[in-house]
């Protein structure tokens, strides 16, 4: 081996090593960034859960793990003696969210099918209208509804909360389902029609079963957006019909000047945990549903 060859080899080795090092460095940076994202997203949520388990006297404790663990806060959250109706509010939210989701899906699936599959005049107008509707500010609805519901005695009723919720859940449903429908294997529908199915039969027997996961995902998104609604409910609900968001926002403690943080965090944890579990279990589907329409 000549000296020149040895030197060349050494240089190559050096080059490979720096490339490897750079790779390692990049990988290390990725891990550090990922850790920062993880902490940024989870730390505040973790703080809520930890506080929910702290004794009231240790509300502002800063230990990362709770030192004085108690379940009292969860009991306090459901306590009605200070004028809170958290238990009732949970039921209300489930009921309102359920009705809104079912109605929106029943109506929305058909509209989405037409928008994704059929060619007709004014299609873009209809799509624009539905997209516009989903961007609509809630305050523009609340004023006339407030007056209307006051006049017809609907203030504080369930229908007064369900109907406005449909105004933003239905467009979301149509929007998400349209994107899902566009990605389905429509060759199967064509085959079914060749085999003698009508368009309606093909829709019911071939497309609906295939669309079930998409419908389920859309239902979750619809339910979550109804569950999270606050503006309309804060104005049109009563103590009896208020959903959890309103109950938590107006949560009162024993002393009027002291915010019962531990109990509020317990209530927040109860409201959030089912959603977080749902979202984590169906993570892929949810992300697909959330981003549907924004790309492609």
């Amino acid at each position: 081996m000549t000296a020149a060859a040895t030197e060349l080899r050494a240089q190559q080795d050096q080059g490979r090593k720096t490339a490897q090092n750079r790779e390692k460095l990049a990988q290390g940076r990725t891990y550090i960034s990922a850790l920062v994202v993880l902490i940024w997203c989870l730390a505040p949520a973790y703080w809520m859960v930890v506080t929910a388990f702290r004794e009231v006297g240790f509300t502002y404790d800063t230990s990362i793990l709770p030192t004085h663990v108690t379940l009292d806060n969860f009991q306090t959250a459901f306590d009605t003696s200070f004028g809170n109706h958290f238990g009732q509010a949970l039921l209300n939210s489930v009921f309102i969210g359920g009705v809104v989701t079912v109605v929106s899906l029943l109506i929305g699936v058909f509209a989405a099918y037409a928008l994704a599959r059929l060619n007709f005049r004014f299609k873009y107008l209809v799509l624009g209208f539905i997209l516009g509707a989903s961007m609509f500010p809630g305050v523009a609805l609340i004023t006339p509804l407030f007056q209307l519901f006051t006049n017809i005695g609907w203030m504080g009723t369930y229908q007064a909360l369900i109907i406005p919720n449909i105004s933003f859940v239905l467009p979301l449903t149509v929007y998400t389902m349209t994107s899902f429908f566009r990605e389905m294997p429509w060759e199967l529908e064509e085959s079914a029609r060749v085999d003698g199915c009508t368009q309606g039969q093909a829709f019911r027997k071939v497309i609906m079963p295939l669309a079930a996961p998409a419908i389920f995902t859309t239902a979750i998104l619809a339910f979550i957006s109804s569950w999270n609604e606050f503006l309309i409910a804060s104005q049109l609900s009563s103590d009896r019909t208020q959903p959890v968001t309103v109950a938590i926002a107006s949560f009162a403690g024993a002393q009027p000047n002291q915010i019962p943080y531990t109990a509020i965090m317990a209530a927040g944890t109860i409201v959030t945990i089912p959603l977080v579990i749902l979202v984590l279990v169906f993570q892929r589907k949810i992300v697909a549903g959330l981003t549907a329409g924004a790309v492609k």
Partner: protein
Amino acid sequence: MATELGPTPVKKPASGGTELHHAPKGVGEDNAIASQGKWASWLLAPAIIALAVVIVYPIISAIVMSFQADAGLDPATGLFAEGGPAGITNYVNWIAQQCASPGGGTVACPPGTLGSQFWSATATTFFFTIVTVALETVLGFWMAIIMARTFKGRSLVRAAVLVPWAIPTAVTAKLWLFIFAFEGIANKLFNTSILWTGSEWPAKWAVIIADVWKTTPFMALLILAGLQMIPAEVYEAAKVDGATAWQRFRMITLPLVKPALMVAILFRTLDALRMFDLPYILTGGSNNTTTLSILVISQIRQGFNVAAALSTITFIIIFLVAFIFVRFLGANVVEQQTGASKGKK
């Protein structure tokens, strides 16, 4: 205009009607469109009717209301006055910040009244919108780039970003109220003693931080979906050609992700312009954190018709911003949605 029956680009030539797809626009297609149109109107009717009832009707009645005067005690005469047509008085009063005066006519609204807050609420709304959307775009892009890389635990990060998104805004507001409490963790962590909700700028930043925390994941996921559409080969080719990381970001990532990014920014902007829950619960709208939505809600109980004028103004502002986005900044939501891509024209 697309010549297919359906808007979906059919990858494999499907059976039945395929000939139609490529046929020039003719009688056959017109018939197909006519029959599909009938189908479509039946399928769409329930949704259109429902939206007409829950959205179009309230908008129209809000507009009608906004041109009416509120019934109430007339400050000039001290007597109860019926409402009645008011022309554009309600709008003019909001924009000029004029209130009815006891001597008849109008005077500048005294500080502290709702009428005096129109321009400050508008400014606050736009300030929140611009700052939060800018921060969310930058942070969201950064998060998306990280989540697009392959590394162990990536799925954990992708799951974690959904947590802030899944927490209801009302709960988020209470959580950050607790974090920003005087004895709360924020002050202890940074060794400060700021009354976060007690004065203007800390209160504004509290709202902004809470909003960025809550909504950046949505932005990140939309951008990530856009990033994943870019084929890896493009980057490889650029690398071979000696493009630096910054060049690759500027010349490949940014232009290719732009359509998804614009839609994400549009959605977030329109959402931020109607911001209500967070400042309402976190600061109660005090210390100049009153947004237009909060102002409308505060006005409702003092007079429907005056509130209707303000909610219509809010609606027009949001509509104009959306229009500017779609018309001048190329956020083509409808085209994105229908997948009517350039190749088909």
